[in-house]
């Protein structure tokens, strides 16, 4: 299958996504410059991490107006898989393909560290290969990763099982200490209503080989591959 990796000016995890998808998982991958609009031939669209447009104005606020984003919306409306990682999650929220926003971390510092994600929903195309409750060791790297939405949205997300991952301890307990940025209810990743758009702050593309400290990120790519 073929992954399309969108590149905005300022994107940087495009290369890591390419490496983990192509070199580690053995799948086809192409870069899609943000001014392109043709996504034909792609089976999954990846919005990678980075600082699109320098995060100026507000994270993802400028990138959502890039020409490629209309095509990404169309792609998602057809029920095809779209995954936004870190800045990609922020772009998806700004584009209203996912609800809520990512605010500045509560401690007002950038944070790069390992996190332990509890898989809350293992029925999405992105998590189907996880066991329910499985803990994935995947790192974060962001300044604006505190997931926030109003009470009704949070309630809807939780009632409809749309929280894909929460920050937890290595054994999967959801605690305040395990929350690296102050995200509401330790939310690390969510899916849209239809379940085909995932946004997550942690970087699965950084944890696809044991030599890098974890290969748990592969489970997400492999789940997508199995779902197509």
């Amino acid at each position: 299958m073929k992954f399309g990796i969108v590149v905005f000016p300022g994107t940087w995890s495009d290369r890591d996504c390419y490496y983990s998808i192509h070199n580690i998982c053995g799948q086809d991958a192409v870069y899609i410059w943000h001014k392109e609009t043709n996504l034909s031939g792609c089976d999954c669209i990846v919005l990678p991490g980075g600082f699109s447009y320098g995060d100026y104005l507000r994270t993802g606020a400028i990138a959502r107006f890039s020409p490629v984003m209309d095509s990404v919306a169309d792609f998602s409306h057809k029920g095809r898989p779209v995954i936004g990682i870190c800045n990609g999650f922020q772009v998806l929220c700004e584009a209203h393909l996912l609800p809520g926003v990512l605010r500045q971390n509560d401690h007002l510092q950038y944070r790069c560290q390992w996190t332990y994600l509890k898989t809350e929903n293992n029925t999405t195309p992105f998590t189907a290969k996880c066991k329910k409750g499985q803990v994935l060791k995947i790192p974060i790297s962001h300044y604006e990763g505190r997931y926030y939405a109003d009470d009704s949205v949070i309630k809807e997300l939780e009632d409809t099982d749309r929280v894909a991952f929460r920050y937890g301890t290595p054994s999967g307990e959801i605690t305040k200490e395990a929350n690296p940025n102050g995200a509401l209810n330790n939310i690390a990743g969510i899916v849209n209503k239809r379940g085909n758009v995932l946004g997550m702050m942690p970087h699965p593309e950084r944890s696809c080989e044991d030599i890098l400290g974890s290969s748990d990120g592969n489970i997400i790519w492999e789940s997508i591959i199995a779902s197509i």
Partner: protein
Amino acid sequence: MPASKEQLEEIALSRKEYNLIVKLLGREPTYVELGLFGSLWSEHCGYKHSKALLKMFPGMGKHVLVKAGEENAGVIDIGDGQVIGFKMESHNHPSYIEPYQGAATGVGGIVRDIFTMGLRPIALMNSLRFGPLSAPHNRYLMSGVVGGIAGYGNCLGIADVGGEIYFDDCYSGNPLVNAFCLGIGKTGGLVKACAYGEGNLVMLVGADTGRDGMHGASGLASRTFEEERELRSAVQVGNPFMEKLLIEACLELAKTDWIVGMQDCGAAGLTSATVEAAYKGRSGMDIEVQKVPRREKGMTPYEVMLSESQERMIVIARKGYEGKVKALFDRWELHSDIIGTVTSDGMFTIRDNGQVVAHAPVEILNTPPVYRFRPKKPAWLDGLQKLDLSKIKDTAPRDAGSTLLKLLAAPNICSKHKVYRQYDHQVGDNTVVLPGSDAAVLRIQETTKAISMVTDGNGRYCYVNPFIGGVIAVAEAARNTACSGAHPMAITNCLNFGNPDKNDPYYQLRECIKGMTYACKKMKIPVISGNVSLYNETRGVAIFPTPVVGMVGLIKDVSRHCSSGFKRQGDVIMLLGDPGGDASIGSSEYLELVHGQVRGSQGIDMAAEKDLHACLIKAAEKGLLSSAHDCSDGGLAVALAESCILGNTGFKGEINLKGRVDAALFGEAQSRAVVSLNPGAVRKMEELAHRCRVPVTRLGIVHSGRFALKGLIDLPVSELDQVWMNGL
């Protein structure tokens, strides 16, 4: 009309230098020419006080492809058609005046040095020095500097894999911010910072030019710190997003044959970029300042030429290819403008709307005078190097535990995770050993190789004994490299010293360079790049002489890399190297922290040091080691404690006390490392150490829960962990 005293002061040139300029030109320089000379003949660009000394460094080695001084950074061959280039540079003065932007633009500058050469930057490190954090201003400086490094570096997608931070009173009025960058590329893919070919076009790419950073090179970097507030306008403001676009666009351009050279606008902006490129290409250049896009109105030719506005590059396009170059930059949404042409007359000509405002030979502009002094050993140094042990009260065995806790909590020893967790250290999918170990390790994708990186430099050692301090700076970097299982390949350095016009700082500079040179030659490690930061003093008080060494090593098989934390319970712990005598508490962290004294020279035997490295590397390559950690700040007890904390394990063992308790536990005898290994590998390790002539002592085993050193210390590791993690 001869330049006034005020004019010369503004650009930090002496009257003697001015007279030399008049003699060489055969006339008075124009106002714009004077500005050019001020920048190009500054210490920062011209190395006039340090050039003669820097020649001592060994520059050649079998892997060296680009030597120090030839290009923006040195380059070495790592095999398989791959090359790496790296360099370290200071941004001390700007960071004191405006910590966030000063540090941010320091990162920006060093990154440009690397990608200018066609190398993709993959790693950053930084070496920082501040005054004690008990003073609010020092805390403000540190949080600004760390914020600036994070804010700029994280935006670029380059892994910031660590470095070091030390604190001392002497840095209160003069913090040090040294930034290191490493890039990787292919053999034959390097771009030179060179302008040649008459009629080729000089293009300026990236940001518009403003008045920010005026006199950065001549003013900030080349004088001491009396009037810092007045010079605030000399600090530039960074735009990391623009830099990221420049990285991608320039690396794309580097793969084409549309250009003959590329150079970044760093210190002294457009002036040094163009003059240096013309000098290297044995060419001239004709620049029209009206073609330079500006962000503010009314800028004079002088201001345009000396502005240090960030994120700008000079590209020398082959005639006829300028349209292609422009189209490439347009796609990355970057401005590019033709501002001049390459000439063959050897003259550097600047025009303002056609009218010539400067017309001087490139050769003269780029050949500042070289100063040599014969400094005397300062009288105070002899006394400082002596240590009367009878006047230093030894640590009682019952106090050993509390002293260990005190050392682990000391800012110079404790964990720096509160700093490096603000840096993205994993982007790039290469980082195998994260910050916090002896050396960071990055694997090279699609090969079995890895490289290790460290920075080291102990200002206290250099203050007490500049020569020995210089030797140890290199030796310790190599020891850390060997502890990661890597062969030392080459070093870069930042030499941070006081005012070189005075005897004592110049003596320190010379002795440190001699010491570093001695160590490099003994270990056959070339110096491939570097930077000098002089005038580090405020109101007459100089910093400790602080050379910082950045070393890169090569690991043939990444699966054999090593890190500092103990790995498995039951592993045997051994000390490699001579335990050292009582004098090893000289210049130590312990002596300063517990006894409030900075004195007593350290000693080092380079033959023993070299043997230790060979032993560590062989042991790692044979797969004998579970962990390796060098004994440095805080001595053996701190090294053992850190390995326990990092490995989330404990220690149980004993040492054979021959002399003082404090020297055995906290002395900083050089050429030692603590290793742990599977009990089955102990005999092989002992045989290997014997063959390498390295003394080896069994210390104990990796245990759980407690740090138990018989008769001296018995503490839960959780308590050690608690103080170590919260020292900052």
